[in-house]
């Protein structure tokens, strides 16, 4: 691992290793492309300095083949790096299906994490190693950005929208967590750490944490309190579509457009329900904007996710 001035950057995931290899290889290409230019500028400046008696006959003013080749060859070499880096970029945007969902709410100036079993923590995120983890993130105010250098990953966190970040930590340790998008007065202090633990240690850590019940349980309580079931009763013959098995399925909207029912869709359906009306239903659902906060939206979404795992049942 690179160590500079006592500084070293740990590789906490396989992706981190790949990024380091990519940076290393590209740095070599930079040397290959820039080295000759710098060396030649110095060499020419010395060899052909004014007053020195050297042969300056037949100095060329143009050479189309030379110009085309020094344009095309570096470009092709760089295109190779483009392909590799784009593939890596796609892979960090495609979380595996079994990833452990953690919801993240950012606000000036703190991070709030919620584990699927309901435990929540501020500014520190504990994760098990070897287990893919998917963060579903939103902000309550301005744009923030969650950055973990040891994972070589960052993703902006937007108000009014969900963004995702997933990773599989491979090495236990405590790593820096930063906010990297300038977000106001205390931007520099909006950080903390990611603690990657052996699965067993993670399990026992989790069991010592107070939990207000899992997100889905809290969501179920809220679902009853808000009276959602009055319309979304189940079989889809009532005023509103059934939510059973909704999460992850394709929904046909009024007008024929299809959309995947993901977290973003559920959020929009709660806060701006009449923008995406399911085909065959009337736009009669009231908005819950202002009535419930981001964390409650996430609880309801967790409950609706759970409905998928037990089709036809209402826990």
């Amino acid at each position, binding site marked *: 691992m690179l160590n500079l001035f006592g500084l070293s950057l740990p590789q906490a995931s396989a992706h981190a290793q790949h990024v380091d290899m990519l940076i290393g290889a590209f740095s070599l290409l930079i040397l290959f492309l820039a080295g000759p230019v710098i060396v030649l500028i110095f060499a020419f400046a010395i060899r052909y300095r*004014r007053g020195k008696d050297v042969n300056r006959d037949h100095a060329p003013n143009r050479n189309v083949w030379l110009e085309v080749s020094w344009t095309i060859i570096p470009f092709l070499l760089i295109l190779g790096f483009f392909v590799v880096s784009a593939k890596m970029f796609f892979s960090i945007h495609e979380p595996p299906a079994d990833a452990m969902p953690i919801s993240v709410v950012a606000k000036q100036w703190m991070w709030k994490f919620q584990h699927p079993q309901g435990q929540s923590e501020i500014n520190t995120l504990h994760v098990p190693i070897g287990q893919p983890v998917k963060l579903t993130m939103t902000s309550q105010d301005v744009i923030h950005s969650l950055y973990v250098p040891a994972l070589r990953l*960052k993703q902006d966190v937007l108000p009014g929208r969900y963004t995702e970040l997933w990773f599989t930590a491979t090495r236990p340790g405590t790593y820096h967590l930063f906010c990297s998008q300038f977000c106001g007065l205390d931007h520099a202090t909006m950080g903390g750490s990611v603690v990657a633990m052996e699965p067993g240690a993670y399990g026992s850590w989790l069991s010592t944490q107070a939990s207000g019940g899992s997100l889905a349980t809290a969501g179920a309580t809220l679902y009853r309190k808000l009276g959602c079931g009055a319309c979304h009763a189940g079989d889809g013959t009532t005023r509103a579509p059934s939510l059973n098995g909704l999460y992850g399925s394709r929904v046909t909207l009024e007008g024929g457009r299809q959309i995947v029912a993901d977290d973003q869709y559920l959020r929009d359906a709660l806060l701006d329900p009449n923008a995406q009306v399911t085909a065959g239903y009337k736009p009669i659902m009231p908005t819950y904007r202002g009535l419930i906060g981001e964390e409650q939206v996430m609880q309801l979404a967790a409950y609706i996710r759970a409905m998928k795992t037990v089709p036809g049942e209402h826990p």
Partner: protein
Amino acid sequence: MSRAGLHDASREEAAPLHTPAEAQSYLNDGNSLRSWLLTTDHKRIAILYLISITGFFAIAATAAAMMRLNLLTPQGALLTAEGYNRAFTMHGVIMVWFFLIPSIPNVFGNFLIPLMIGARDMAFPRLNLASWYIFMGGGLFTLAALIFGGVDTGWTFYTPLSSTYANGNVVLALSAVFIAGWSSILTGINFIVTIHKLRAPGMTWGRLPLFVWTHYATALILVLATPVLTVTLLLVVAERLFGLGIFNPALGGDPLLFQHLFWFYSHPAVYIMVLPAMGVVSELVPAAAHKKLFGYWFVAYSSLAIALVGFLVWGHHMFVSGQSMYASTVFSFLSLVVAVPSAIKVYNWTATLYKGSIALNAAFLFAMGFIGLFVMGGLTGLMLALLAIDVHVHDTYFVVAHFHYIMVGGAVTAYLGAMHFWWPKMFGRMYNEVWGRISAVLVFIGFNVTFFPQFLLGYMGMPRRYHEYPPEFQTLHVLSTGGAGLLGLGYALPLIYLLYSLRHGEPASANPWKATGLEWTVPSPPPTHNFEDTPIVVREPYDYPLSHDSSIA
């Protein structure tokens, strides 16, 4: 003396384009303040810009110095969080809009374009003066924002922070940039019309100096991109003052819309800063090497290519913003494409030196410094264009280092190169060449010591815009601050010896560097109307005589 020098001297005598010596210099044509403030002479307006942007540079550099001193310790050695945020916002706003964008075009473009194409003035001299007043109006708003306590959004003004949450004088600062934008647009229009309509007989597009080509490309960007910025800033003001829901999702807006609009202007703006710098270097290198520029047409067309493709890459600032990954992939590809015309220029400058007769003077040393720093900035820019690398180093000091290599290492170094090359023409005095070389070397070393450690900091994960940081980053920050001291000295020296030369410098001849180009055929400093008779151009650009057969004028 070299053969090249002798040939040039003989050619100068034979040159048919000399204006009579009794013509009055533009500097002596009226000494009252009024004669300066109401002038429509493009050369005097250039001097007005020179004085005002030097002032802005000093303010913005002071902010930078405060930031670097603050970062000497992990807890912040000098400023509060608020003070630091306001310092980097002012540093960015003033450096970008009141120094980098106007520097080379408004000072040297204004001064040189009419001289280089054989015209008596710009196409719209009054509009030219109006542009300066508008620019100063924007400057006053900036200073007002500063005096009333500053702005705390960063120069990028990302929403909804700027439109809803920030506590500083955001509206004043946005108005400042809005006003300065109009100055840019008017200057751009003036350049385009001047270059199209006022070229002397025989000054075909193929005989235009590359300095003029790059300013033509720059003017296209100014005219096409700046209106997008000005409208965007108005929208932020509308949301901030009247609560119109444009960018803030709580009001029904889109938080990313601002970034798209902002970077649609601000990425091309990088080329507004660097294309004129490339134009300067394309003049300095052949003049120092006394040799025709290698591959004239490749260099000329690459300017237009940069201007056009530069409009298609704004999304590379947004790879981690939440925009679609397919969009990011396209922007990544196009960003790699735009590097091609830039690389062409670098290779061509290098090839120009081959078999040249190179004068290692201060102007050339600055040009060499530009090439080295620009190459470094450009290639690290490619790293940022590669998606997986950008995700890691985005919004860290790696990005800070990269764009300072382009904008400060590139644009400012070329600006100093231009200053040393055309100073004798502008003021009719020679400066101390030895001090000039010392300054060029100091700037190059100081710059690298300041900003190279920031690449390492960024790779190690140090985010930008932090007034305090984890202690392990301290060593590199201290190194960087030390470099900044050296760099500051390199910038301060020219201020001293150039001002000294105004009174005590040796009088400059019409063509002290034995360079080609119409500006060197008029006396130094030029007379008010530039050319007594409209010159007729019969020569190719950069037709430096090197071998026996091309020496006959």
